[in-house]
């Protein structure tokens, strides 16, 4: 199962659809980001990443939750 497929499964589950979901991935093409956004991703981090970026995205997602 890919990360995108997991996201789709999570969003399809009524108990989990509101769960914040951040993708951390090496996929960096536009179509990858668009597909994730359309599937309901909360935020998208591309590898390689650092802890500061991760912290910033988590805070942003929680602020919007």
């Amino acid at each position, binding site marked *: 199962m890919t990360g995108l497929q997991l996201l789709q499964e999570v969003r399809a589950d009524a108990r989990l659809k509101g769960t914040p979901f951040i993708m951390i991935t090496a996929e960096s093409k536009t179509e990858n980001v668009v597909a994730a*956004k359309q599937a309901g991703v909360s935020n998208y981090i591309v590898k*390689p990443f*650092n802890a500061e970026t991760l912290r910033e995205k988590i805070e942003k997602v929680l602020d919007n939750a």
Partner: protein
Amino acid sequence: MLELPARIPEPLAHRLAAIRSRYPASDPDMVAGVVGAVLTTMRGDLSASDTALLHEVEELGRTIAAARAEIAALQVDDITASHIPSATDELDAIVAHTAGATNSILEVCETLDSVAGKLDGEAAAALQDATTRIYEACSFQDITGQRITKVVATLKAIDSKVAQILNTFSEAHGDSFRAPTPAVVVSPVPANGDPAAVGPQLPGNAMDQTDIDKLLASFD
């Protein structure tokens, strides 16, 4: 393009039929042999157009033989039977070994994290900072693994195409071109058939985090 006369003269047709009965299966070598035999039997009996026709057929046979010799000289069999399988095996081994090594590093980091939890003050902070940097650095393994997997998929696609070429020639030339079983491409390849579209992109094709943040913001 070889132009054949609308009607083959009867003497020539009879002689070709007699030669064909001695060579029941068509084969480029046999075509050359037939042409040579016809020329031998027809020497002195041919009209100018017959001579031109047979010359063209003989030339065609030489061209086929030359192409076959060039392909055989490439030792294409070695590519599919040895070089590509060896290369993909090596790359798969690299992926497996780096994944194993990374898992070992992460397990050690988890141990360090639990130790840090039992410490106070600067020592705990320093240890946690160090393990965090190790976690960040280990993301290389995921990227290299995916890049190598893309290379393996590309090699297997090449292997499959070469095997198709070998099979095509082996149908015409029998044992001269032994085509091994085409490799099965098991890596994920999107519908457009381009393995390079999957996984980490080359720097020129990749978006950085800033670009991705702008793209995500455009949806809001």
